[in-house]
């Protein structure tokens, strides 16, 4: 079966240390004030104090039905067979349509290169058999990456386990029908 790459976030583990953000920045020479991945804070009510903070990582969701791919006039933004949504820099004309089209705010404009930019699931790294930079450096093992079509992969095993344990599993803005490939898991 074809490979299909996904990422899981075990959000109970995230401590918002931001190592993923800098690892990615270092790896891909992301322009000064931008990052390809972020961590947000969210509040949830709890019985212990008035509220509790959760840390939610985010990045490009590599959607199956990606709005950025639909709006791209030059097909620079395209969906690969392995599920990765990629921007072909040589085709990108910098029209920026894709940036507001993304419901996850995952894209930004790279002024220096004159192209739209975002997470690539570290395609050149995975081609070499490495894990994405954010996954490698994550000290809390919040991020798990792999081929969901391989039943033996870590993502498949962890996801199955989460379903069995009745963990809360969700994707961002599923109502939009973009079919994201990033899974949030909370026990």
């Amino acid at each position, binding site marked *: 079966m074809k490979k299909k790459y996904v990422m899981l976030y075990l959000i109970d583990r995230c*401590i918002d240390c931001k190592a993923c953000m*800098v690892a990615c920045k270092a790896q891909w*020479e992301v322009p*000064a004030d931008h*990052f390809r991945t972020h961590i947000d804070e969210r509040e949830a009510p709890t019985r212990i104090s008035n509220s509790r903070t*959760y840390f939610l990582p985010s990045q490009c969701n590599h959607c199956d039905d990606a709005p950025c791919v639909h709006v791209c006039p030059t097909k620079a933004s395209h969906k690969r067979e392995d599920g990765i949504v990629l921007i072909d820099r040589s085709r990108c004309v910098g029209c920026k349509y894709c940036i507001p089209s993304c419901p996850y705010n995952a894209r930004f404009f790279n002024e220096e290169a004159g192209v739209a930019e975002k997470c690539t699931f570290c395609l050149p790294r995975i081609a070499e058999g490495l894990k994405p930079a954010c996954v*490698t450096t994550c*000290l809390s093992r919040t991020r798990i990456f792999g081929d969901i079509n391989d039943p033996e992969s870590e993502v498949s095993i962890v996801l199955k386990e989460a379903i069995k344990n009745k963990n809360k599993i969700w994707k961002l803005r599923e109502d939009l029908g973009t079919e994201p490939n990033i899974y949030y898991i909370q026990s």
Partner: protein
Amino acid sequence: MNIGVSRRAFLKTAALSAAAVSLPLSIKATEKEPAKKMYGRKSSQTWCEMCFWGCGVTAHSKNGKVYKLEGQKLCPNNYGSLCAKGNAGVYQLYDPDRLKKPLIRVGKRGEGKFKEVSWEEATKYVADNLKKVIDSYKPRAVSLIAHGSGEHAFIKLMELIGSKNVAIPAYSQCMGSREIGWWLTYGAGFTGHEYGDGENAKCMMFLGRNVLESLQVGEAKKVINGLTKGSKLIYVDPRYSKTAAKADYYLQIRPGTDLALLLGMINFVIQNKLYNEKFVDEYCSGFEELKEAVKGYSLEWTANETDISPKDIADICYELAKAAPSCFIHPGRRLTRYGNDTQTVRAIGILNGLFGNWGYPGGFYAIQNPPIKTGEVCEVEHEEGCSCGRADGAGTDYKLAPSNLGRENGLFDAILSDKPYPVRAMIAYGTNFFQHYPNYETSKKIVDKLDFIVTCDIYMTETALYSDVVLPESTYLERQDPIVTQGDKYPFMQYREPATEPLFDTKGAWEISKMISEHMGFHEAKWKSIDEVNEEIIKKAGITLEQLKKDGCYVFPVTEGIYPQAEGKDLEFKTASGRVELYSGFLDKLGFDPIPKYERPKQAPIGQFRLLFGRMSYHTHARTQNNRWLLALHDYKVKVWINTKKAYELGINDGDNVVLRQGNKKSGILTAYLTDRIHPEAVFIPHGFGRLSEFMKSAYEMQGASDADFASNDVDPISGASAFQNAFVRVEKA
């Protein structure tokens, strides 16, 4: 604010300023470039120096240019991970603000006028000036403050000079009270390598230790793993930090009252027989005295003092008791707070003793020491020595302060007062006292008293700015250092090789120290090469250099001894009684309370706040604030945490520009962060901002407040270490 310099522009600047080194302009693999075309790739092993924890790092470079750092998989300090700081080491290496050439001051001190000189000239100038001070005032007039991997090089130089005035600020300005408090109770310090067995704990309690944000990667990993396995987390802090976000019990304590909470807990645990009777009988001394001494600290009294409800206090005692001995109460880390810090750690030690969390999985494990010692690059045939004693009171006025670490605060008192004798020269290695010694004005006075100051660093820090000579050190990615060994659950040794040629005209600490030593005429010192020393160590360890180079570290196998209590071995404590000293005979002899007693710390005057400061997970001390990758993580803003209600009373809204004020003194601009997650009596700022040196351009432009400029300079009477947080400030709109 001119913060918008692009990454590429920065890389170009770095390339231009390193004209001597050929640097390719495009250093990254573009996303389309196939892997096999990437020639000239190399991996080098080192350990991280962005903080002092020493995570194993593999540096990847291409055509001589370092492009990515990754954690060494086997290194027990980090097991493959690097934090944000560690990942940002690449920026530090290519930071255009780095020191590039040796400098000799030509203007007034602090004016920022220097001339570039050769290494030969700079080190000779240092040697001549040190000799001048020695000739006028004896060798003891030379002092050293140092922190980092190269500190041993300058400690050697001090041995050659014959001065004992070496102060490592990690004692008096950071961990001193903790080490002494633990030593008094257990006969040994807690050591820099925290040995709480987080990954096996059933319950963990932290006070004075924001463990998931101060971020020693290895320690944080242990804690996270424990939490994932279901360990309870009790976290006590006036501020809801990122550790609090993971806690089962977050207790927002009134600042300054930790000791009250601990004494209340001790009493509750004894009264309700929640302690481990067998362990107390077998291994503890002074239980009856303790029981008597703490009986006044009732639940109600404790709740009233600490602002924590009686139910919460009782609940956490039950949680700990249920988990014991697979639990621990962490003794904190930077214990420079209210002046009662040694006794606070004593109380933590006592509480752990009552639960018997010693040498047991999930409690404290026994640190295993490596079977070999780190070698010395310089052998001194005969140390000049000095019968004069130290200037800082370590071992004399403060009997428990260890002389190998010294008291930096005591050293500065001696410099200012000429008592017990004049100290007129200072070598500062990798440390910047303007940012960790209270009050900029006092720091300037210290400078004025000194005939000669030399700083060895990678940036023009404030201390460098006020120095007579500035010696630029190569960063950890450009230099070699002797192999280091480290004790832990599994002891290990770490290897460092240069990942790149030095970008600028910089040298490693050993080389610099050797040059000064030669100019001073210490020809009896035998300086070996780092390779020679490493060869000896590797031979002793019975491994090969190739092995070490491959993984970057070597972990010694350990089969037993990590959990002596669980293994059924008798526990030994190196205290005078050979037991855990709940009652400290030693403190009694010295005239201190043998069992901690609570006294309310200084209170804030009306309209003022206690100034708390601490780490963010992405800055270390005052050394990473010039790193734009890290500054971008907090949007180039320095926030002050202030309680919402208090802020509204002052007419301050969230996001407003505000300043701290103390008397006539005013801080730089901070951004108000209004939150209920800080106790109303305190405000919090991150450490390391509010800089004076314009040469650290990004850090300088960030403004913010320097906690050091506002901190108190109280001293813990037992350990002789500082207490910074008895300082109070007003918050005003800018």
